[in-house]
């Protein structure tokens, strides 16, 4: 009871504090309540807590960061508007003058930009993100045949290079390529294997330093050494475990000195050899050397305004890949979602889709054709399924304060409704994250087939025109188990053929609904 009262009092804190430390605060309360039993300790505990509230709550609002205010207000505008009153003093004269000057400058800048509209370059919302993320996302729409909802095969993208050169990437490990961008987005194998025109950004890089013979480079000792040195520099700079990076560097040099690399003259085989040598030191399947037949561009191509417009248009045409949003008989909400698109383009569609099933008694997410997408969208949809911020594990990102769902969502009624996820062997990447986390949190029953097994967390780094490396740069905390779904996939709770998954889910959902 007392915990519930304190949980209510915690609501006095601003949302950013609750999201970051709400659960921790409750835990601290539980710890103290357990250790400080009896009348007087109990009274002292409550006096401490109340005085803490009196001091901390105003301070938290006073010190709230502008970005957090924006986020908080934005979320609530979807339901009831909420405004924070942040101060009751009149602005100082200096502040007013500065504000006026800034406003004038802004108006002037906008006027100049409008008058030079021909040379205006639009702001791209993801310029702060790694470039590979944007490349991966948008280049999925460069060709109609290459799309987020791919078909069989699950090779992933090389993040540092544009997709059209990723088409000819060959993994050091012949069986698979683990390299992937942070954006969980997939291209078809079929598309990847097509001959592609070199990217425009690679024009300057066509002067390859390696001799390319019959689609593969022949390497001499000095070229091999240059690749090894490049690998060492990249490892030391980017690998998540610096001590292992050092050990790998020593191992690579020692192997080279021993003459173990001498016989390998083909680029592909050399990449495979270096991958093996690195993994012998650090058995990390996300770590690999990659050889590309086509020259890798010096700088990853940034998405152009046209590509951005095309992405937006494609999403509009496909209803942001929400293929179906329906209420099935027995008031079961059904969402067939074929990717997790970029929230900066599809937030409204996603919000509307969730709103239209808000009054359902159970909800089915059909992810049988979902090949992944943006982690932000995965977390956004998951936020509807909890009434409190829940730790949301993403193997591609370091654990931060953002690793929590944005629950509760104002006006949402789905937080306590049964959730079913339909899976197939094609369910992949971001869709697997959605399934895995919900399963581990015991929030969803998964029905269908074991998923594809794509949890790559490597980021691609170019070494030279033909060699690059996939390197894990993150060390996220998996609170659920030592392994995730990489390669093994996510096992469903109820195994049925993918084609029968919907029928099974509907039956199961009906049987579990209270009889009316």
């Amino acid at each position, binding site marked *: 009871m007392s915990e519930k009262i304190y949980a209510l009092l*915690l609501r006095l*804190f601003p949302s950013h*504090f609750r999201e*970051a*430390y709400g659960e*921790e*605060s409750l*835990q*601290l*309360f539980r*710890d*103290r309540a357990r250790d400080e039993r009896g009348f007087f300790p109990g009274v002292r505990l409550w006096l*401490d*807590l109340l*005085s*803490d*509230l009196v*001091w*901390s*709550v105003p*301070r*938290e609002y*006073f*010190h*709230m*960061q*502008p970005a957090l*205010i924006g986020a908080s207000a934005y979320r609530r505008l979807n339901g009831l508007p909420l405004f924070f009153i*942040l101060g009751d003093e009149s602005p100082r004269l200096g502040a007013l003058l500065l504000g006026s000057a800034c406003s004038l400058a802004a108006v002037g800048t906008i006027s100049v930009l409008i008058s030079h509209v021909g040379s205006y370059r639009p702001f791209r919302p993801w310029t702060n993100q790694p470039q590979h993320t944007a490349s991966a996302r948008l280049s999925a729409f460069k060709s109609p045949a290459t799309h987020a909802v791919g078909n069989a095969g699950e090779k992933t993208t090389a993040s540092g290079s544009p997709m059209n050169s990723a088409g000819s990437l060959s993994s050091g490990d012949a069986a698979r390529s683990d390299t992937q961008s942070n954006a969980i987005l997939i291209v078809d194998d079929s598309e990847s294997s097509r001959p592609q025109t070199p990217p425009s950004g690679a024009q300057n890089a066509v002067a390859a330093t390696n001799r390319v013979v019959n689609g593969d480079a022949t390497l001499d000792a000095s070229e091999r050494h240059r690749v090894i040195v490049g690998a060492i520099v990249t490892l030391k700079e980017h690998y998540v475990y610096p001590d292992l990076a050092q050990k790998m560097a020593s191992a690579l040099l020692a192997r080279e000195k021993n003459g173990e690399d001498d016989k390998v003259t083909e680029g592909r085989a050399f990449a495979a050899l270096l991958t093996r040598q690195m993994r012998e030191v650090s058995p990390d399947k996300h770590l690999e050397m990659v050889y590309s037949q086509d020259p890798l561009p010096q700088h990853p191509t940034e998405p152009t305004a046209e590509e951005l417009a095309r992405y937006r248009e494609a999403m509009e045409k496909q209803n942001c890949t929400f293929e179906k949003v329906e209420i099935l008989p027995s008031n079961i909400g059904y969402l067939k979602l074929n990717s997790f698109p970029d929230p900066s383009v599809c937030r409204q569609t996603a919000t509307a889709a969730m709103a239209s099933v808000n009054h359902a008694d159970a909800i089915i997410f059909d992810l049988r054709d979902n090949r992944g997408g943006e982690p932000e969208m995965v977390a956004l949809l998951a936020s509807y399924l909890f009434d409190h911020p829940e730790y949301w594990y993403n193997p591609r990102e370091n*654990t931060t304060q953002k690793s929590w769902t944005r629950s509760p969502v104002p006006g949402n009624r789905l937080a306590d409704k049964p959730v079913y996820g339909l899976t197939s062997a094609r369910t992949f990447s971001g869709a697997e994250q959605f399934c895995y986390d919900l399963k581990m949190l015991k929030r969803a029953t998964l029905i269908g087939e074991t998923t594809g097994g794509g949890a790559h967390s490597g980021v691609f780094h170019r070494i030279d025109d033909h060699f690059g490396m996939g390197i894990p740069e993150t060390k996220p*905390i998996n*609170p659920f188990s030592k392994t995730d779904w990489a390669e093994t996939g996510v096992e469903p709770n109820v195994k049925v053929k993918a084609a029968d998954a919907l029928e099974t889910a509907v039956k199961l959902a009906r049987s579990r609904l209270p009889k009316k």
Partner: protein
Amino acid sequence: MPKRKLDPLPSAAFQILLSLAGEDLHGYGIMRQVAEQTDGRMRLGPGTLYSSIQTLLEEKFIEEVDRREDAKLGQERRRYYRLTSTGRKLARSEAERLADLLRHARAKKILRGDYV
């Protein structure tokens, strides 16, 4: 909008830095350690504790380490915090400032005892 400042270092933040000087601790561990090192005079409530932790994290004076269980307190996984080298420097300079203050207090005969 003002950003929380650590200059001068608030007492709660200093106590948290001191509490982490010996070992990594979770939130409740910090609260107990602070209570112990102040003879029970300072019992940090969740609001003060976590807002101070947040500020110290933002300024990189402490860092989060692996989430793990505390065997004495059950199976809940807890966030642990660690003092960084800059945090240690900050705590040291604050301690030196206080020691300096103490020397002055003794010189003015406000406080008796040996010089520190």
